[in-house]
């Protein structure tokens, strides 16, 4: 089972993040765990890289971030929860369509489909 490292998914990280946030809000660490679980343990990325991507998405209005009210009795700094905006949902739908078309076309050329 080959490992997919961060460099290979760099161009798709934004869409993957949006996809993970589609159902419910999540903080950075949780999001990373979800990505790794969804990737069946084959996706390994430098964890710090997630945050610049989240900040860019937030700046562009695709996600909205809110600090948690308190630390809920937990030690350490507060977490920041991200949720998808309407604009983010629209981008995700467009990116999914684009990705499906890409896989169909390239898969047909390379000789394998997803």
């Amino acid at each position, binding site marked *: 089972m080959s490992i997919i490292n961060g460099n290979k998914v760099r161009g798709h990280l934004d869409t993957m993040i949006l996809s993970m946030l589609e159902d419910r809000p999540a*903080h*950075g*660490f949780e999001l990373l765990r979800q990505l790794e679980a969804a990737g069946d343990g084959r996706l390994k990325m*430098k*964890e*710090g*890289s997630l*945050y*610049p*991507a989240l*900040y*860019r998405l937030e*700046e562009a209005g695709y996600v909205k971030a809110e*600090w948690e009210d308190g*630390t809920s009795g937990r*030690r*350490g*700094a*507060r*977490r*920041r929860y991200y949720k998808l905006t309407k604009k983010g949902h629209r981008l995700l739908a467009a990116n999914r369509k684009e990705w499906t078309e890409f896989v169909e076309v390239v898969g047909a050329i390379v000789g394998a489909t997803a």
Partner: protein
Amino acid sequence: MNELDAHVTRIVGSVVASPQRRLAMRQELLSHLDQVYADEAARHSSQTEAIEASIRRLGDADQLIQELQSSVPFRDIVGRAFRWAVICLILEIFLALPLLAVSTLDAFVPTEPSLVTYAEQVHAARFRLMLTTMLSSQVMIAVFVFALTLLYFWQQRLIRLSRRPFLVLTLGAATTGLVVLAGGLLLNRTATGEMIVSVSYFVRWTYIAIAAALAVSVLPPIIGSQLRRYRSWRQWHVLTTDSSNGSETDAGGKLAMS
């Protein structure tokens, strides 16, 4: 963990951004590292190994600095160089707008009963629109500076005009403009009578109301945001000083980002 705190502070300290943004980045990365450390502590017997593993998982520091820097919007970087805009806006509200209002009223309708004698002397008992070069320049400068300043604050998200207040303000400004224009034209044509007095009062109080509405709606958020910026700067200063001295810093306790 002091080492994790120092590592994050060093990374975020190299990013050129506003103190507010850097504090937010720092708190979030620290929160992440706290959780990573909890993972690693369960795997490693030594604390040092767990810290090293946590830092490794975050990724190469230089690359992370570059990535974080690329996520900082340009306005956040250049915004720091334009703090003077605050002074501009305050001057605008407290100096230019009243000056503009007074000049305009003086040019249009000096017909308030207490000013009639003065007006008769100055204007030889005939009221007319006097758009002098001085007044025109004043109007243009005031409008230009005011528009630029508002635009700046809007871009900086220091003020947030929701649709309704924006609509009310725009309609108010448009109505005032029309009234001023109509009043000026009317004065040019008739120049005497009760209607002039009532128009002058209406114009005067509309101006005052608009200036007050602007001051009330714009000033408190600006003052608030400047206070928050100052507090963030202080927090950042204290945190970076603590980290460089190697003393203990309770990030979760000290940071209270809104």
